[in-house]
């Protein structure tokens, strides 16, 4: 789809193209970027023209990107590490265009920007919340595939939980798929049956698990989300205690500004609380669940992250030792 901005083709307008594997309304990974670009558009009225391509398999992404280049786009974002090669090769071929992709911590060539959400921080916050509100001290993690973003978030969750209650039990299970909502729901049900009372999960499939928690409306079964969009959903209202999101707006704004100033890339943007890459929110409707103690603890942790980025040793977590 394309959403052309009102501005006409003139020097002030930067054309941004987004390539995503899922859809821009998936209430997760892709939507976060889409929302970020829209927010950036609002902040820089008339300066950004935006188009996106959804459901891009790696090979389709190549076609789309080339078409965008041909159409004169200035910034092409491949939102997923699977687009890495594609981006690097195209960057080589088209030095005048800025390419961006993430997650990656590599600093790429002159005209490549990478971004790296350090999602263990959000996971850590979720872990603190989960462990605090849990009555039975058994937590559940519904993972898609143990890699990338999800691996960091989930391990951060384990560390966060243990930081509050060292003996807390965490059940981790993976569905093996990013988009199998039903299986995620099955995992959640299985964990709830096994005695878990607070769950979390990552990637779009996690919505299936969140929905499964809402099947216990009157029981103390809760969810901690990985995306703020989850809070707005009906079952999120009911069950999602808190959530944190990636906020790509600053990344996009700086990207556009840099491009305007002639800096095409050659840097990596880590995303964390320190640089405003994450936003966090509680679910007001469930304020009975968390006291001001917890809110304070979370705020303290966030300022800790702001002062001390990159402090969560997520790699140390070994699921089989839980």
């Amino acid at each position, binding site marked *: 789809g394309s959403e052309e901005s009102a501005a006409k083709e003139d020097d002030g307008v930067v054309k941004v193209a987004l390539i995503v594997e899922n859809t821009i309304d998936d209430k997760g990974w892709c939507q976060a970027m889409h929302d970020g670009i829209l927010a950036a558009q609002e902040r820089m009225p008339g300066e950004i023209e935006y188009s996106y391509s959804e459901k891009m398999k790696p090979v389709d992404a190549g076609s789309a990107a080339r078409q965008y280049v041909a159409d004169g786009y200035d910034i092409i974002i491949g939102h997923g590490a699977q687009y890495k090669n594609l981006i690097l090769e195209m960057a080589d071929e088209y030095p005048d265009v800025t390419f961006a992709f993430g997650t990656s911590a590599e600093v790429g060539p002159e005209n490549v920007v990478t971004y790296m959400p350090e999602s263990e921080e959000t996971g850590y916050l979720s872990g603190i919340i989960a462990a605090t509100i849990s009555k039975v001290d058994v937590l559940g993690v519904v993972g898609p595939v143990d890699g990338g973003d999800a691996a960091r978030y989930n391990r951060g969750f384990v560390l966060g939980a243990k930081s509050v209650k060292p003996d807390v039990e965490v059940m981790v299970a993976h569905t093996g798929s990013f988009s199998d909502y039903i299986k995620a729901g*099955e995992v959640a049900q299985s964990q709830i049956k096994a005695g878990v009372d607070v769950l979390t999960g990552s990637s779009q499939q996690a919505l299936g698990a969140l929905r499964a928690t809402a099947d216990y409306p009157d029981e103390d079964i809760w969810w901690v989300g990985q995306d703020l969009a989850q809070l707005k959903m*009906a079952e999120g209202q009911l069950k999602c205690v808190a959530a944190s999101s990636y906020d790509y707006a600053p990344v996009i704004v700086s990207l556009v500004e840099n491009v305007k100033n002639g800096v095409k890339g050659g840097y990596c943007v880590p995303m964390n609380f320190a640089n405003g890459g994450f936003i966090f929110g509680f679910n007001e409707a469930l304020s009975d669940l968390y006291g001001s103690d917890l809110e304070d603890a979370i705020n303290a942790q966030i300022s800790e992250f702001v002062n001390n980025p990159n402090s969560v040793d997520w790699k140390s977590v070994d699921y089989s030792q839980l």
Partner: protein
Amino acid sequence: MDFIVNILALGIPFSVALLLASIGEMFNQRSGIFNLGCEGIMAMGAFIGMLIPYSVGQGGATAEIYNFLGIIAGALVGALLGLVFGVVVITFKAKQGIAGIGMQLFCVGAAGTLFRHFVGGTQSIPGIGKFYIPLLSKIPILGQIFFSHNILVYIAFLFVPLSVYILFKTPWGLRVRAVGTYPRAADSLGINVNRVRFQALAVGGALAGLAGAYLSLCQAKMFSDEMIAGRGFIAVALVYFGHWDPIKIMWGALLFSLAQSFQLAVQGQGINFPYEFAVMLPYVLVILTLAFSRDKKKQEPAALGIAFDREKRT
């Protein structure tokens, strides 16, 4: 003990969508039509199933009615799509395998497109809750395993004996079996082969649609365009597992789903091997069970996949 009870209590509802779709596909195949479009019909059933309660019946006291309307609509759309498939493979005699793939693409795509247009992103719905059978659900252990599910679970399992009855005791079942094995013989007795096949496709489609509606309204209680995630193909595979016999198909669906719920439970307990091997379990188990089962009776409907034309020689 709890561990096992939980596996059983979850595995049974997990199996329902597979069971329904697979029995539907069995009716298709018994009549001689191979419908790989099952996956797509499930997607449409799931979409239409959720659309009705979503768009007209959110909340309120009458929500349940809209849920059931949704289920019925899912089945109806499935039946309709089965008939559409029939037009392609019966009226036009198109090759069934490839047409099935076309059907699957069309339906999955249409469900997704319409969903994006009318609803938007992944959407949840209240769905249909559990129905605890009075008294029975109170029995310790057994009550939890067998009598504490949503109403469609009971209905789906009732379909098993029902379809055995339909297939083997009713005139229609007899006609279905005959047109799937030796359509020429049925035709020589004045049975309208293509009409019976259309009927079977409608039934099969309705069950696939129902399976989809079960997924969106009862199991996931949400919809997303990718939610069927290959379950339609597994349902087709289970027909081969069950050798076109509803009861064996039921065992296949249960085997798969119990293995699924078992591996999830085991993963939750903590495993010291890569989780991928746990995820594989149900698939591996189904292959192995079939490979090493004694019963190799070939009951494949002999005319499966062949369009019928009275004047054409075969």
